[in-house]
């Protein structure tokens, strides 16, 4: 254990790629649930760089941050999906192009 090393830049590249995929999905997806999943992908990309930096600097607090990010993501998913259900109930569509007014 500890004998082998992986360059930090590999982790950062993978993390950045996942984040970029999340941003692209956020932009090009029209289904509101797919957009929401793209946000989760972005959070996962950030989590990977948190853990990589925690291992790099031997700072365990980085993993605590990942834990908190996961908790906030869970809360966000619960509230967000409830909002999606509420929007679907009033608009009867999941396409964000048709959900463009604040009023009913």
């Amino acid at each position, binding site marked *: *254990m*500890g004998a*082998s*090393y*992986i*360059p*930090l*830049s*590999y982790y*950062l*590249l*993978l993390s*950045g*790629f*996942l984040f*970029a995929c999340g*941003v*692209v*999905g956020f*932009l*090009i997806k*029209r*289904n509101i*649930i*797919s957009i929401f*999943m*793209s946000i989760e*992908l972005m959070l996962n990309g950030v*989590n*990977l760089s948190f*853990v*990589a930096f925690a*291992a*790099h600097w031997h700072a*365990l*607090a980085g*993993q*605590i941050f*990942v*834990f*908190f990010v*996961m*908790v*906030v*993501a*869970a*809360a*966000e*998913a*619960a*509230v967000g*999906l*409830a*909002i999606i*259900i*509420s929007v679907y*109930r009033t608009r009867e569509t*999941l*396409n964000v*192009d048709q959900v463009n007014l604040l009023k009913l």
Partner: protein
Amino acid sequence: MNFHLILFLAFGAVCVAGAINLLAQRHPINSALSLITVMAALAGEYLLLGAEFVAAVQVIVYAGAIMVLFVFVIMLLNAGEEEHTKGSRIAVLFGVPGMLIGSVLMAWVVLRHSGTESVPVGALPGSPRDIAQLLFHDFLLPFEVTSVLILIAIMGAVVLANKPERSAGEAD
């Protein structure tokens, strides 16, 4: 090329493939399943870094609980394939090249400034015992605040997803 690097590349390839598949699929349920693949592969990456607790939580909470919630909502709302509109074509036209330029810039910066720093594999004590020591001593207040956040989120979800009740007595 050592064994850990091969493992890293294998999990990373699964991550990349899953992320691209998430973008390529039109049906939300397919996107959700590829997102689960990405999360499971990321748990492997965490395990490779020695973060056992985070890897377990990743599988249980993320790939388990959150994604089940997603799949449940997709099936509840009977979400079908997304149709292409004028807005989506414009978004693809500008979004994909813009993000390609952005990721190339980011990769360039990372590769230029990273030098020869490397991460020791499995050297970090990330077992539940060490995490708990830190979480319940140094991060006790954020931990408790988090429980309040979850309580508020639960109440918010219940209120939002509740059927809007018709006021009693009114003819509808």
